[in-house]
């Protein structure tokens, strides 16, 4: 086998060991949704939206499942801060294979920001047993991409963000994480426990099975009330992107049409 960075990891095939993971998740509107502003102008209109688990969280959970499959056993706990409704996305993660859930009940999620959510998660996670905390690299609603790194800081553990490949050493003391950086990749060695934030490409999340869905119904969700800090981040208003003026549509497949386009890009738009 070719010796490369990945050979730094110590292997000890065949031994069954326990590995515990925590997967942080958030319910978000489905990415196919068109998002409207509510009547107050400071939040989104929730009517008619379908909420799903944040897509990046599925990569996070899938990696936790694969890690457990590699080691043989262990517990996977999904945790979220959200309204009661978030129980449904939790059940979806159960159907994929998570064992139990913690729902920190928050009926006013619009009053939170990443710091207040990370503070809540840290408080809940502090007493739990874990080797790795997995998060999505960002939630596709507010696109803040902050909670993972903030949680790592608050728990005083290291972080690897936007991870596209992960190998945990058999002693569970360290891992190699491949991160996406501009124009390339970076591989870091990280001590465990750590926060890993999942980027698309890390794995291919499994589909849920009927049996999985059935089992999900009986898995426990610990619903907690906590004092959730209020956000420092204050929304003033939401707005729609500026409307684009109607474009110029050309028809044809010949050099004349292409010449017209190039001329417009060069002399009107001045972008080439």
């Amino acid at each position, binding site marked *: 086998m070719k010796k490369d*960075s990945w050979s*730094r990891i110590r292997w000890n095939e065949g031994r069954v060991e326990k590995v515990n993971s925590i997967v942080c998740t958030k319910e978000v*509107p489905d*990415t196919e949704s068109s*998002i409207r502003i509510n009547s107050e102008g400071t939040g989104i209109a929730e009517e008619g939206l379908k909420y799903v688990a944040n*897509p990046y969280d599925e990569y996070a959970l899938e990696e936790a499942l694969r890690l457990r499959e590699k080691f043989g056993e262990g517990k996977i706990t999904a945790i979220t801060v959200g309204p009661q409704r978030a129980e449904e996305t939790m059940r979806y993660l159960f159907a994929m294979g998570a064992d139990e859930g913690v729902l920190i009940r928050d009926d006013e999620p619009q009053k939170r920001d*990443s*710091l207040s959510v*990370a503070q809540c998660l840290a408080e809940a996670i502090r007493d739990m047993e874990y080797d790795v905390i997995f998060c999505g690299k960002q939630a*596709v609603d507010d*696109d803040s991409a*902050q*909670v993972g*790194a903030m949680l790592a*800081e*608050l728990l005083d553990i*290291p*972080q*690897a963000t*936007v991870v596209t490949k992960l190998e945990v050493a058999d002693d569970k003391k360290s891992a190699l994480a491949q*991160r*996406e*950086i*501009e*124009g390339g*990749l*970076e*591989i*870091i*060695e*990280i001590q465990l426990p*750590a926060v890993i934030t999942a980027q*698309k*490409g890390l794995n291919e999340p499994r589909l849920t099975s009927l049996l999985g869905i059935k089992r999900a119904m009986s898995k426990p969700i610990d619903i907690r009330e906590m004092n959730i800090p209020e*956000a420092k*981040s*204050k*929304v*003033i*208003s*939401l*707005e729609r*992107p500026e409307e*684009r003026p109607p*474009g*110029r*549509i*050309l*028809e044809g*497949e*010949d*050099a004349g*049409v*292409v010449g017209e*386009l*190039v001329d417009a*890009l060069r002399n009107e*738009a001045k*972008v*080439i």
Partner: protein
Amino acid sequence: MAGIWVFPEQRGAELKKVGFEILSVGRKLADKSGEELGALLLGSGVEMLAPELANYGADRVYLADSADLEDFLTEPYASVICDAVIVNEPSILLFGATTLGKDLAPRVAARLGTSLATDCTELDINDAGLLAIKRPIFAGKLFVNLVLENAKPQIASVRPNVIPVQENPKAGEVVKLEGRIDLSQVRTKLVEIKKEAGARVDLTEAKIIVSGGRGMKGPENFSILEDLAAALGPEATVGASRSAVDAGWRPHSDQVGQTGKTVTPDLYIACGISGAIQHLAGMSSSKYIVAINKDPDAPIFKRADYGIVGDLFKIVPLLTEELSKAGRE
């Protein structure tokens, strides 16, 4: 002592373009609020970059030059920045919203117990003297205007390619940051950086993106988009829609859209992309959009500044030829 601070990142002693963008916007904010602009310069053997930072508006350059800062690692970088912030108490701290900035800024914010706005596209000072922030949410389906209250400092990361760069020579007095880094306490280690061989500029930094979707019909056909990007120059690159990525035609890192990258090039050329809502979200902030698609009813045409209804397999090579011809003249 207050001040507005920016963190222009460098890799391999080369400043990223977004560094000049945050200096430019930081300068504007500093002038408006009557504060100094400070630039944090971290790395190894990077002191010679200080005059460049001064040239783009830094009154002071806070320098931490140490062999221990040669590779970017979250923990030592966060420590140096937090220590400097605690001593100097800037009111605002700006990062570039790059993979490095997005890794570092939340760690810094959490340690300082303050909040952060990611990927900002507009920054100003409001009447109350607070940082007025505009940033996209839902990958650009909407924008939010916000402020960070009781946030010391107010931290924001700025989306690359949005803020115009402006020279504005200032003194750039170098202030050396004291403090030791104990690498034995650092829990990560850089093993390797793999640059893609012959890779074009990154999607988030590209001035021009030529993007392909399901209409490309297969991975082999992306070569015509590569050729077009090459004809458009070194600041052009190739992207893809989710369907092209999910089909395995292109790597995940090429994906534009709500579960991929949100991009803001000057020119986005969508080839064989119908324009699913989650794709439109990721590229609608492009300054100019060109759509090439044989379906005249494709939603992408509603967002396009220029469109050609026709066969992309005929049009794209003609476009490449036309541009190469112009380049030779």
